[in-house]
């Protein structure tokens, strides 16, 4: 027997090319398959007839022996309050939208199947040939590398600018130039000119000594 959660009603239209507007649902284009368990069956059928759909199928998995469960009767005011309070909340959708519930159950089942499959693969012993009927020659033998893989930060590619030897460089000519008479344009500052240690240290480290 189906549980309350499994019950659904599904409309299937296989004929192509119909554009169907069912109140409360987005506009559909056939062929389509849609859960309509919240719809009144007669309203649905008349709606379909209005748009000229005659070839359709409504599937229901409710146990025919079981008496149809009556929906709780709500006053108009109560319905409005319910709609405002609950219609949009995820909890409400999960509890009341059969289509979503069925979809969730289907997904849960798929996840469970996947888990079982993975478990089977893990538990299965690796394949060990019991007898060698043919001598096989490896086409490519990869050396076994026990070292754990290292992850290097990808190096940012530097844009290497190609030197253009033909680039324009102005000619330098001192013809037609003259300095002011007298002082040089420069000034001088005393510096520490004892560079022997630095020069020999640098030459040594650069392998030039």
């Amino acid at each position: 027997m189906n549980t309350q959660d499994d019950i659904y009603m599904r409309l299937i239209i296989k004929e192509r090319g119909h554009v169907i507007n069912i109140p409360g649902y987005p506009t559909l284009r056939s062929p389509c398959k849609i859960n309509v368990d919240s719809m009144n069956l007669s309203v649905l059928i008349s709606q379909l007839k209005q748009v000229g759909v005659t070839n359709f199928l409504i599937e229901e998995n409710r146990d025919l022996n079981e008496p149809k469960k009556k929906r709780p009767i709500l006053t108009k005011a109560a319905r409005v309050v319910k709609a405002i309070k609950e219609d949009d909340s995820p909890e409400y959708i999960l509890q009341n939208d059969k289509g979503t519930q069925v979809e969730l159950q289907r997904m849960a089942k798929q996840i469970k199947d996947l888990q079982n499959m993975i478990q089977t693969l893990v538990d299965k012993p690796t394949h060990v040939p019991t007898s060698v009927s043919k001598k096989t020659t490896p086409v490519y033998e990869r050396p076994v590398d026990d070292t754990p893989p290292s992850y290097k930060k990808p190096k940012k590619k530097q844009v290497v600018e190609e030197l253009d030897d033909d680039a324009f460089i102005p000619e330098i000519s001192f013809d037609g130039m003259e300095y002011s008479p007298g002082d040089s344009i420069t000034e001088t500052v005393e510096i520490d000119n004892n560079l022997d240690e630095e020069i020999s240290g640098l030459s040594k480290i650069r392998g030039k000594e």
Partner: protein
Amino acid sequence: MSDIITDFIDDKNENKKTSKSKSSSKKLACGLDIGTMTLILSRSDSESAIITRNMFLEVDTDEVPITEFSDLKYVKADDNTYIIGDDAFKMANLFNKKVSRPMEQGMISPNEIDAVDVLALMIKNMFCDIKDKDAYCSYSVPAEAIDMDRSVTYHSKVFTRILGAIGVNHTSCNEAMAVIYSECQKEQFSGIGISFGAGMCNVCCSYKGVEAFTFATSRSGDWIDTQASNSLNMTPNRVTNIKEKYLDLDKGFFTEKNKKRRRVLEALTYYYGAMMDYTIKNLINQFEENFELEIDDDIPIVIAGGTSLIPGFLELFKETIKKHELPFEISEIRMAKEPQTAISRGLLIKTMSDIGLK
């Protein structure tokens, strides 16, 4: 050693091997720091570094006759006359004009048509007479800037041509690496060199004399001046003037009585902090992306460059770096012994090591 010498380009003879035949006694090694604000040359035959302010001011000789320039340093190129060096800076401040700069943001300015001529003249003047000498020079080039879409290739090639025209064998070297050559001998040339120049901030991480990575940012001295001048609606060289005369990051700006000046100093202090923060963040990023070696020893950070000359710079840098978690261990943060000339000194060390001169 011959293979070392051939690293240098000998444009004057277009034959690299000719330099081998010359006697070592006539060899002259040089290090030329080509900065946005100053050009500095260190020579093996001198105990002084030669400095020229890298700027000029074009003057109309119809309006101001050349006889008026008796005390000024100027050059004439074709029909144009330029006041150059410090005099240009002083004159521009006097007349509230904007001084022309042959370089901007660490490279030759594309906005100044006379930039290359003026630079060539300045550099020629700095080398003086080298006709009877076999001169070798390493000159500084910036790294590719991470926040600017300009190549250093053109810049580097122009200086190749200028030095070739003067008759100097030359090779280029990263500016921040020169700081390492100058200051990190005791750490076997391992460390992080930062050159806070006028146009760019250059950073280099070196491990045992090998460049691990280099990068540059466009936020340095000029950026600070521009930001401060934009905030206060002043010309950038006025701000530079106040910065060079009055800014002390140790003392702060509160003690300054002149309100306008106090506001400039306040803005400058703020932008100094912002520039340091930006540099440190980028250093961390570059280190994480490019450095794959495990370093056992702690490494120093060495600071040089004209922008770092302001009193209290080192302390503010140390305070700023404390706010960040670094991916490497620091042994110390120190200033170069001579922050302004450290780059040219480092370049001189490299040249002398290259050509085997002591």
